[in-house]
């Protein structure tokens, strides 16, 4: 413990130099800016800025890149809440309650909850990374393909159980999502599936294109239909800060979200993308305000935002302890380090203590900076809602197009977005929710991959899913959740809760 404090103190002494602090601030600012511009994600930005880091010291470079990463997470929630535009997997969930809150005039409270919840979760997760990174790595490594499959299956089952409205429609959307997720090159055989000879489809459909089309742009089309809503989203911005009651409701959600997010973030096989979904589902089932879900429940913003940020921090663990990047942003950071002649991995703690502890300290400093940047800006963001639609909508469309294009530098993704905007509009006319579709889209292909890998390793023996304790536990919970869904009286009380 004392050693940990010494190390952290050393880290802070590195991170608090004027130069490193200013680069942390710069990174956080850039990150927030790109997070707010829909679609321009951290991957595109970091790859653009990568050459700039070559001239810097390694510690400074990585501190700036980490700042961009967190900043983008924060910024992404802003557009999700204000404009129903999720740019990343994690902010899909934030749109569900956050955008409803914004329509109810509680945009300020939603933004403040997101910022405070993320800050708290980020702080806790940073300490976790510092204190028990190597231990957590061992846990993460013990997850085999069968365990991942059962975890993802559990995620999908819960997605159906807790969907709003018709369960049948929710299952339908999950299945459509899984089908869309299977487009592209089959990982096991290299076979092209559902690509119709279009080379751009061989890597699958883009998440950002689908999410932005089905959420943000479909929402624009819907709003254009309503003459009364055509001017501005909300003339009254409402109180900017949380009320005392809201604060009390959000606190336990943040705590639960932090726990779940920290745990899932360490799993490199797609754990982090489950964090926000999982937290949303948990809040919907457990929180005091569960009857308000679907109408703008603050718990539905607080839990997922905390989980998302905690997972963003703990997903550094595989990178720092094994040298294995757990997502595209991390892969870019590895690239930046290798260019500097530093190989991330278990020996980095001893070989590069400045870098290792400096980075950990700067994670926390970055979170403080984001709070400082974001809280005063809430008033400004909320004013965005008063911009008349005739200016706001064209601007959103332009930024979405730029953002989607920048992911692969390919116009194809822009066409995909348009197509899914039309599809999303049709879905909302039919009262089919896009969220279960996106959950299916993200989890479906991962589930298939892990399932088939588990079967390859077991030579086709299904018992492997029950033999492994982690897998068996997950399957047990999934079966229990399914049983609850099928029991008629349970159904009734669920529908009653929904109606109330």
């Amino acid at each position: 413990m004392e050693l940990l404090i010494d190390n952290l103190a050393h880290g802070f002494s590195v991170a608090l130099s004027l130069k490193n602090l200013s680069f942390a601030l710069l990174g956080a600012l850039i990150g927030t800016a790109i997070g707010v511009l829909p679609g321009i994600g951290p991957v595109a930005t970091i790859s653009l800025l990568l050459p700039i880091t070559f001239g810097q010291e390694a510690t400074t470079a990585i501190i700036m890149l980490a700042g961009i990463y967190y900043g983008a997470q924060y910024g992404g929630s802003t557009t999700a809440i204000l404009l129903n535009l999720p740019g990343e997997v994690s902010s899909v969930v934030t749109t569900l309650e956050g955008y409803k809150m914004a329509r109810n005039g509680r945009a300020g409270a939603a933004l403040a909850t997101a910022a405070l919840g993320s800050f708290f979760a980020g702080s806790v997760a940073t300490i976790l990374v510092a204190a028990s990174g190597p231990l957590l790595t061992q846990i993460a490594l013990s997850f085999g393909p069968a365990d991942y499959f059962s975890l993802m299956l559990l995620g999908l089952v819960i997605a159906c159980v807790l969907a709003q409205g018709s369960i049948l429609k929710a299952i339908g959307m999950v299945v459509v999502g899984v089908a869309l997720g299977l487009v592209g090159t089959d990982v096991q055989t290299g076979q092209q599936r559902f690509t119709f000879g279009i080379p751009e489809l061989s890597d699958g459909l883009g998440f950002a294109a689908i999410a932005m089309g089905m959420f943000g742009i479909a929402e624009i089309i819907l709003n254009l239909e309503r003459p009364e809503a055509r001017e501005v989203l909300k003339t009254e911005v409402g109180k900017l800060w949380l009320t005392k009651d809201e604060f009390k409701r959000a606190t336990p959600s943040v705590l639960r979200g932090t726990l779940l997010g920290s745990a899932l973030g360490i799993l490199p096989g797609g754990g982090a993308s489950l964090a926000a979904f999982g937290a949303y589902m948990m809040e919907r089932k457990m929180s005091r305000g569960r009857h308000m879900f679907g109408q703008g429940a603050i718990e539905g913003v607080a839990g997922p935002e905390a989980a998302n940020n905690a997972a963003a921090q703990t997903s550094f663990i595989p990178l720092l302890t094994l040298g294995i990047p757990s997502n595209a942003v991390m892969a870019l950071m590895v690239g930046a380090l290798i260019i500097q002649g530093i190989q991330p991995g278990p020996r980095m703690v001893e070989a590069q203590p400045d870098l290792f502890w400096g980075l950990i300290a700067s994670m926390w400093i970055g979170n403080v900076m984001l709070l400082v940047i974001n809280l005063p800006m809430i008033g400004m963001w909320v004013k965005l809602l008063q911009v008349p639609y005739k200016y706001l909508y064209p601007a959103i469309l332009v930024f979405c197009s730029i953002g989607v294009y920048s992911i692969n530098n390919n116009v194809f993704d822009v066409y995909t977005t348009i197509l899914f905007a039309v599809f999303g509009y049709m879905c909302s006319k039919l009262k089919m929710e896009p969220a279960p579709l996106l959950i299916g889209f993200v989890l479906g292909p991962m589930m298939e991959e892990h399932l088939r890998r588990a079967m390859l390793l077991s030579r086709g023996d299904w018992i492997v899913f029950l033999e492994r304790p982690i897998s068996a536990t997950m399957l047990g919970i999934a079966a229990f959740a399914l049983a609850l869904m099928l029991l008629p009286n349970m159904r009734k009380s669920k529908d009653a809760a929904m109606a109330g």
Partner: protein
Amino acid sequence: MSKPTPRRAALSLAPVLALAGLATPALAQSWPSQPIRLVVPFAPGGTTDLIARLVATPLGESLGQPVVVENRPGAGATLGSLLVAHSPPDGHVLVLSSIASHAIAPALYSGVRYDALTDFTHVALLSLNPSVIVAHPRLGPTDMADLARRHREGARGLDMASSGAGSSNHLLIVRLGQLLGKELNHIPFRGAGPAMTAVIGGQVPLMSDSLPSAAAHIRQGSVRALATSGEMRHPAFPEVPTLREAGFDLVTSSWFGLSGPARLPAPVTERLSREVLAILARPELQARFAEFGGTPGTLDPVSFTQFVESELARWGPVVRESGAKPD
């Protein structure tokens, strides 16, 4: 490695060079007149991207115009390559060619809309990266002989991971299986990172990986290197035998090169080749390449073109035997 006769390749190149030489001497004088785009058909951050960036910066300095790396990933590196095949051959658009896009993909995908030889001017081989067979330090075999014994004796054969179906590492597993007389159970992953995680975690005992991506894990001792696939032992890992030394007649390396659209003016090709070879010969670059397990290339445009030709001829049949299903 099969080597085509120099004469044949020279003949096949002659008309291209002659045409290019005639084309636009004036253009070559002013080249480069604007920043050069280097299309990298892979996602940023990986080995390929690193090699491109390590070369791009000094190349820009030598040429007096910046060389800007542009990542265009997708479809087994064929999307970015196609883009360059269709670009004007003025020397301002180049591509990082590789074994993936220019030797394997043409055999693997029927939808590849370029010819790896006639649609490109191959300028220089940048890097040859041998593959390496790595094992879990406790659960995996201790050396290649142990691997062969366990594979033949075990009822189920051994599992071996790779970065993906149809990758050069997968093809190595196929060839190795043929030499062992019994197919290895190939476990494909989505990229080298997840596959390496599974090996370190003991989910899969063995993996075939490119040396640059495995180098750090070998040095850290989180995996054990059994054999490399180069002609000779790699200078950075002198204690690891080659596959051939271990009794497997298998020499293979993944490679990255610099290519442009077909009919690049000859003076441009010559200048590019000269500058790139000079950069690759620099001690600091040699050191960086050695550190991450690559070998800088030394081929001129003619011999690099021959090399691409021989690689195409070599990998086609292996792809067809590999069971990686073309579309």
